[in-house]
């Protein structure tokens, strides 16, 4: 609405860039490279050999010049993961903060309290899930896909804007849903756990003889949560002695559909989550179980992929998305409604080609219309609208990536993407050298830049007594340098060492304006962080496998050189899985260490270790799978720093909890 079209500078930029890549192709020579004799290799070695063939153009992330972790459906079962947030907790350099309303992801020492998950891009089957009002990528019970439907998750660390545009700031998390098999039909799963938590799922999954694949699934979850939660900040007879009763409930339900046939995929999803807010956030009435948020998310897309000859592939996609946020906040017994509504639609196309023998080129374009980005704030009694902000916008992006095998052991990967939001423009490169001097050793040197545009909430949210808008906000930028060393250790182990340095400039950050005491977002802070990740993983023999990682991350607010809030300096993770007694009985053990974190009030939360154990029993009867999990085995009491909207400086997390789960495949 009323946005001025930016001059088509981007088009002028695009031509020389294309020309540059085409020139690169012209410089290619058709060397004959002598390869090792495959038949002399062991099976383990063969399993590490990269192959190519006519159908080997995977989408986007596969050969991403980044530090990548893969989590499979097997991991989800063996470790008893309930949410995406559970999964991310186990990954090096990731940590999660939960304020008993939403879960927030911190990466590489950055997890500013009170910010939404706008700096990590979360995709489902390549489809962007971050909404268009708050930019938030859901990861907790609000994540719209049942984790049982996940085939694998690719976690790509580092800036990804050169391929994905805004939000791919610290990492891209691509969740890939299950494929239908020809041998299965129905699957039912129920589980029961601590805090009166019950969940059920029914899925129809089958690939028919004509190649039509169907995955249709519905899930429902209901948790009472902690029936009594004590907050010392409210320890007063007027506020129920600090005890919030029956206000921690968490309920969701959702549907997922995927239909695929001969290159076409139709996928749709709808999910709704209702969460009670027991913390009296935003100074609402304490111990009023009517305080809650409801988040509804849905999308549908149609994708077509086609192989064009032996060495190129084209993909086209059309999508439609909705997001609906409905917050109920009680003030003096009066209901206040905070609403956010987003709808958007658009299309994208990706053309991948091996135009010359040493190049793999991807060229893509995306267009998105944000038809609705509305925010509303109503005081219901008497009905007054404090905020009724209606917006729409568009974005157009083009990108190009080339993977150039300079020699047998050296790959140069270059990507560039230009995003035009009409109000904002951003061009982001990524350059990587991938060098493998000998078998089993890979070095990667990467420079990447990413951006995030201010979201509608940061730009336009306004409420008379607490917050004002700032339409002059611009995008924030991150520049990352990274050196990765991936090393096989013997046949069974792999080691990754990853040293990174990033600088965030023009960080969009909420301040309190001293003139009027109102909160306002500004492009103010700069952050500079150095860090190292170290991970060793592999097979321990006899089907046991595991990994252990340590991350050191030293983040500093650039001017004051102080440590930002919610930025642990040390993270360590341990994951082990092994059969016990019988090959059908598998134990999954994990432990996660988080060092102390600064809070907004200048305090620190304690360091803690949380350990979880799952025992998975397979084939107990035909098609029957049973699992039992204990989360936080040692009942460790720990806290997460909270945001500006809380009186509490930090919020207590859950103690020991259990879950029993039964899955039956028909």
């Amino acid at each position, binding site marked *: 609405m009323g946005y001025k079209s930016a001059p*088509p500078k*981007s088009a002028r930029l695009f031509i020389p860039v294309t020309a540059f890549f085409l020139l690169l192709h012209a410089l290619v020579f058709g060397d004959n490279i002598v390869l090792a004799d495959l038949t002399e290799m062991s099976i383990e070695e*063969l399993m590490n050999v*990269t192959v190519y063939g006519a159908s080997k153009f995977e989408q986007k992330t596969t050969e991403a010049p980044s530090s990548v972790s893969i989590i499979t459906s097997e991991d989800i079962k063996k470790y008893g993961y309930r949410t995406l947030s559970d999964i991310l907790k186990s990954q090096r350099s990731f940590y999660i903060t939960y304020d008993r309303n939403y879960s927030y992801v911190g990466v590489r020492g950055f997890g500013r309290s009170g910010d939404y998950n706008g700096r990590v891009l979360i995709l489902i089957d390549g489809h962007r899930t971050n909404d268009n009002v708050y930019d938030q990528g859901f990861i907790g019970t609000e994540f719209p896909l049942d984790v049982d439907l996940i085939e694998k998750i690719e976690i790509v660390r580092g800036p990804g804007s050169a391929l994905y545009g805004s939000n791919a700031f610290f990492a891209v998390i691509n969740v890939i849903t299950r494929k239908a098999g*020809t*041998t299965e039909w129905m699957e039912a799963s129920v589980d029961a756990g601590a805090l009166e938590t019950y969940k059920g799922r029914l899925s129809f999954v089958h690939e028919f003889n004509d190649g039509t694949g169907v995955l249709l699934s519905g899930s429902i979850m209901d948790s009472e949560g902690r029936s009594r939660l004590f907050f010392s900040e409210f320890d007063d007879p007027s506020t129920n002695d600090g005890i919030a009763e029956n206000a921690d409930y968490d309920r969701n339900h959702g549907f997922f559909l995927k239909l695929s046939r001969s290159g076409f995929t139709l996928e749709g999803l709808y999910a709704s989550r209702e969460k009670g807010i027991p913390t009296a956030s935003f100074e609402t009435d304490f111990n009023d179980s009517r305080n809650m948020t409801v988040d509804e998310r849905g999308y549908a897309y149609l994708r077509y992929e086609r192989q064009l000859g032996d060495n190129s592939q084209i993909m086209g996609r059309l999508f439609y998305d909705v997001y609906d946020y409905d917050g109920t906040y009680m003030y003096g017994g009066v209901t206040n409604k905070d609403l956010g509504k987003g709808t958007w639609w658009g299309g994208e196309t990706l053309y991948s080609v091996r135009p010359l023998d040493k190049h793999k080129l991807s*060229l893509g374009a995306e267009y998105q219309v944000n038809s609705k980005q509305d925010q509303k704030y109503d005081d219901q009694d008497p009905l007054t609208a404090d905020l009724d902000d209606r917006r729409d916008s568009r974005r157009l992006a083009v990108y190009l990536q080339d993977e150039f095998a300079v020699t047998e052991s050296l790959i140069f990967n270059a990507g560039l993407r230009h995003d035009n939001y009409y109000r904002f423009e951003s061009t982001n490169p990524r350059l990587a050298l991938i060098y493998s001097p000998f078998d089993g050793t890979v070095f990667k040197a990467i420079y990447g830049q990413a951006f995030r545009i201010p979201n509608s909430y940061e730009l336009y949210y306004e409420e008379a007594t607490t917050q004002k808008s700032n339409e002059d906000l611009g995008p924030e930028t991150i520049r990352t340098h990274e050196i990765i060393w991936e090393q096989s250790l013997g046949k069974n182990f792999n080691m990754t060492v990853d040293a990174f340095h990033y600088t965030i400039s023009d960080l969009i950050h909420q301040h309190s304006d001293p003139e009027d005491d109102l909160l306002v977002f500004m492009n103010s802070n700069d952050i500079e962080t150095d860090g190292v990740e170290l991970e060793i993983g592999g097979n321990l023999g006899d089907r046991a496998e595991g990994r252990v990682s340590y991350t050191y991350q030293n983040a500093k607010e650039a001017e004051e050189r102080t440590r930002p809030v919610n930025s642990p300096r040390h993270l360590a993770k341990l994951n082990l899985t092994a059969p016990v007694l019988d090959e059908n009985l598998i134990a999954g053990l994990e432990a996660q260490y988080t060092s102390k974190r600064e809070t907004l009030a200048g305090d620190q939360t304690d360091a803690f270790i949380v350990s979880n154990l799952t025992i998975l029993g397979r084939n107990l009867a035909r098609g029957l799978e049973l699992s039992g999990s204990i989360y936080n085995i040692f009942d460790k009491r720990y806290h997460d720093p909270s945001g500006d909207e809380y009186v509490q400086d930090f919020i207590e997390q859950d103690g020991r909890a259990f879950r029993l789960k039964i899955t039956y495949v028909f």
Partner: protein
Amino acid sequence: MSFKKYSAVIAAALILIAGAGTQEVFSQVHGYEEYKVKAAFLYNFTKFIEWPADSFENADTPLTLCISGGNPFGDALDSLKDKTVGGRRLSIRIVSRPEATEGCHIVFSSDPDGKNLPAILNSLKNRRVLLVGEMTGFAEAGGIINFFIVDDKVRFEINVEAARRRGLGISSQLLKLARIVKEKN
């Protein structure tokens, strides 16, 4: 509006690149040809599979690898021609009809839509044959080993029950590396 200009640029770039793409020059830079790797896997499998003694006529009978349903290997099989397995020569046969599997110890079925599988299973009866495929659901449907590709790397799954039925022993070393699948009756 700048969108039109973008479209023109993208279209031009696509045409240029598509033109370059027709050259179809490929070399093994990023990796190996898929079927060279699969051929090496097939050879390697023989080291971990135990055929009962009665599946060979005599000590000199070669181990016969049959390729059924079209030959995707091309000359990739040449690398296996002079190999021996446990003192036996490895013999390679391309079978034109799926049911012509007499005398095969390994049958590799390249059959993307799975149409030949019933015919092969039918012709094999319960003979001591290692049935290898490369199609979703192949092992669950009665095949023994099935290749699949994850992140440009070759992986395989094994239907242990199907191997047992055919009297084949599979080393635990091989099972350790495989995804184990169950049969769908």
